[in-house]
Structures are given as C-alpha cells and as structure tokens.
C-alpha cells in the first residue's frame, strides 16, 4: 500500500483493544510510512504504549487490523509473528533489560535468538561491541543491569533494539523519569540512529520537546552533534495525539501548534511557554 509515494510500514485500521471493561484503543487508524518519524503524544493512560505493543502483536486487537510490513499481524499466530518482530526494534518504557543477564548478553539476545537475523556466532561479540559503542556504553559489557543508572539502562535498551538493524524502531516513553540532560542524551541517540541508519521511527512520549527535537533537528555525523534541519530538509515527522484510547489529532508540528483544542494545545503550548 502506498500513500504519498512511500510504502506504509505500519498501518492500523480501526483497531480496538479492550481490557475487561476498559477500552484502551478505540477504533484507531493511522499509517506510518517508510522513512517517516511519528510522534505519539498523549497523557498517561491515553493508549500510546498499547498502540506500540499492539503494533508488535504483544497485545492482540479485539477488532480491526494491524498491517506490519504489509502483512496482517492480527491474523498471525504467536509463532508466526517471530519473523515479523525481528524486523522491528522496540525500546520498552523502563528498558526491560533481563536482570539475570550481563549487558553483553542482553544486547546479544536478539542476535542469538532471532533466527531470521542469521548472525554467525563469531560475529555476535563484534556487533554487540559496535552497538554499545554507538550508544557510548562500550565499557559496560560485563556489567549487569542493576549496576547501571536509569539513563544507561535506557541506552542499553536502545542498543538491544537496534543491534539487529531493524528498519522500524518503536520507542516507548524513552525519556520518562529521566533528568533533562540524560533525556536530551537519549533523544540525541534516537535521532542519531534515525539519521545514520535511515530507520522509520515511532516515538511515544508525553513530552512535546522530544517530538520537537526529532522534527527539527538532524544528527550531523561529522560534528557528532544535533543540528537544526534547514531549508525544508528536515525529517518527515508527523504528530498523533491520543486521548482516552482515541486519536484526536494527526498532522504536522505546525498544525499541532495551531490547534485550539484545549487538550491538544496543552502538549504544544508547554514548549512555547
């Protein structure tokens, strides 16, 4: 399926998810195109995390369909989803690192367990080292997650998500609970990954500044820093705003900032103030 000349990597069609009597997602429809950055904004409990987990098939949709890389993920059994999931990297809210494994084993986990990645055993260690250097944690190989700070665990989570070089990356509240400096470092890493490897990115967050940074800055490999994207050459970024399981806004940053809806404008206004 094509929209604006780009194939849709992820597409939700009227997806509804219920937990007992609570509707977590209510007829949600959106598409994420190749090379696009999608920022999912919303208050806590608005359905952002459920949307990301439903995209991966970790939560099953009660109604509607989810198409991942053109395949109907909702029609697949758990075992059949393994191949599809190997093409998606996900950073969970608190990192979700395996406590009992070292950092090296955590990052190597997808390479050793996702057969479709076909990583020869002798290449596992070099790829893990390279990925940990990418997130500037090359010295933590032998440590266990409990020895790392919250920000470092999040960076290891990013390393684990990107080690298999997936074309689609889902970030669930990567800056939640972090101090502003660490949060900025995490966002820099996400932009770096997106711009150097040209991955399609979906980011769930309640912080508008995270979306603002992804929409307006690009990573410069020469200077090793984020720089403002000039002359319309910025990344294609779209904003979705969730409220009580529904998408109440979908559009560009300018449209978001112009919105007069009290709920929607709360997210855009914070940065202006």
């Amino acid at each position: 399926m094509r929209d604006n000349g780009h194939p849709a990597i992820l597409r939700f069609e009227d997806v509804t998810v219920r937990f007992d009597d609570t509707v977590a997602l209510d007829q949600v429809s959106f598409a994420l195109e190749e090379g696009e950055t999608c920022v999912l904004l919303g208050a806590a409990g608005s359905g952002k995390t459920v949307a990301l987990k439903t995209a991966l098939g970790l939560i099953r949709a009660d109604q509607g369909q989810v198409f991942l890389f053109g395949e109907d993920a909702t029609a697949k059994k758990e075992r059949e989803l393994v191949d599809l999931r190997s093409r998606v990297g996900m950073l969970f809210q608190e990192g979700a690192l395996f406590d009992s494994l070292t950092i090296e084993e955590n990052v190597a986990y997808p390479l050793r367990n996702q057969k479709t990645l076909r990583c020869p055993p002798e290449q596992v260690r070099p790829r893990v080292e390279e990925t940990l250097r990418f997130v500037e944690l090359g010295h933590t190989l032998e440590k266990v997650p409990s020895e790392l700070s919250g920000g470092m665990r999040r960076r290891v989570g990013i390393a684990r998500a990107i080690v298999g070089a997936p074309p689609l990356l889902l970030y669930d509240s990567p800056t939640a609970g972090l101090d502003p400096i660490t949060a900025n470092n995490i966002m820099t890493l996400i932009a770096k990954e997106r711009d150097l490897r040209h991955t399609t990115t979906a980011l769930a967050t309640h912080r508008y500044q995270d979306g603002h940074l992804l929409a307006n800055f690009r990573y410069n490999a020469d200077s090793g820093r984020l720089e403002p994207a000039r002359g319309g050459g910025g990344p294609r970024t779209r904003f979705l705003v969730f409220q009580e399981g529904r998408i109440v806004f979908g559009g560009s940053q300018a449209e978001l900032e112009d919105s007069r809806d009290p709920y929607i404008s709360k997210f855009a206004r914070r940065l202006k103030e």
Partner: protein
Amino acid sequence: MLDFLKSPIYSLQEFIQLSGRTFRNLFRRPHYGDDIALQMDIIGVGSLPIVLLTGFFSGAVMALQMSRALRQYGATGEAGRAVAITLVRELGPVLTALMVTGRNASGMASELGSMKVTEQIDAMRALGTDPVQKLLKPRLIATAVVLPLLTVIADFVGLVGGWVVACPYLNLTTTDYYWNKAYQSIEYNDLAQGLLKPFGFAIIIALVGCYYGMQTTGGTQGVGLSTTRAVVVASVWIFVLNFFIGTFFV
C-alpha cells in the same frame, strides 16, 4: 447471580490454556538445556538442606509418636515397618512437596511476576523468544525430574531419623531388625505411589508457580500477591491430588 463464579472459572480456563501450551512445547525445539540444568540446580540442590532436615525429623517424630502405641501392643519390633510405610506412602512425598512449594513455587511466581511487571516477558516475546518455551518448560521439566529424587532422599533420611529414635534413643528394637522390617514392609505398590505422587506434585508446583507469575499485574504489590497465591493454591492442590492418588492405590 453467578457472577462470583466468573473469576475462578476464567482463572481455571487460563491455567488450563497455559498448561496445555507448556505440555505442547515439551517436545518442540529449542529446548534450552542450560536453563533446565540451572533450574534443576536451583530446585534440587537448593532445596536439599530443607528436605534433609524435614525428612530426618519427620522420620524421627514418627518413631517417637509410635513408640507408646507399639509398647502398649508389645510390638516395638515393628518400628521400622511403621516409619517406612508412613514415610514412603505419605509423609515423604507430601512434606517434600510442601517444602519445595514454599521455596520454589513462590520463587517461580515472584521471579516471573517481576519479569512481567518490568515488561521483560514482553521484551522476550518481542525479541523472538516464546516465554513458555524459555521460562515455563525448563521449570516444569526440572521440577518433575528433581522432586521424585528429593522425595527418595527424604524417605531415606527419614528412615535414618526413625532409626536414631527407635534404636539408640528409645531402644525399641535392634538396628538389624529395624532395617529388615523397614525393607520388608515396603511393597511395589508403596514405591509406585511414593514416586507417582512427587511427579504429580511437581507438575502442580511448577505450573501453579509459573501461572501466578505470568498473571501478575500491578507492580511490586502484585508480585507479593502472586507469590502468596501460588504457595496457597499449590499446597491445597497437593493435598487434593494426594488424596486421589491415595484412593487409586488403596
């Protein structure tokens, strides 16, 4: 009107589904041999001290309590028989299973529960691993292999405990006579139920512990609740199964 039945029936359905998935996965690859060995070490070697202690003292207390009755009937020579039969048929399997329940069903529920609330189970699924294969199957196999062995050890140590009380302590009988009686009194029927019971109990311990771990919600408080439920439910089902296996062999 029957709303109060909804929750337990739903839980039973979930438990049966999870158990079914675990059994279906028993012969499917991958087998995670390292995890099975690790769990056998945690459950088997880790439980050995408490199993030795409970086994020894249950045998000893059996001999102690039976001594008065045996003296009344002038049958003190039967001490070995009394201890052997009660241990092999009932006390050995049940007490060992209860000890392992307290130690390992709780451990499984809390470990898996913590993994659930910190999204590690989701991460495992997202990274191409079936949690049933990776977490439940090794625990089920390890418990099913190790619990019968622990029970045999508990039975033997219990007989030693009975001997300590019956012979050196109370002089009820001679050492040779005690061990002869103990050996002669145990029939194949006793051995069969003495080994079948721990096998059945092992399935209950592993599946109930893992089920409550996988059902955990609500943070650390939820983990505590799952752990308590796992121990209580597994203990109750051990007694229920013990009765039904007992009726089969009587």
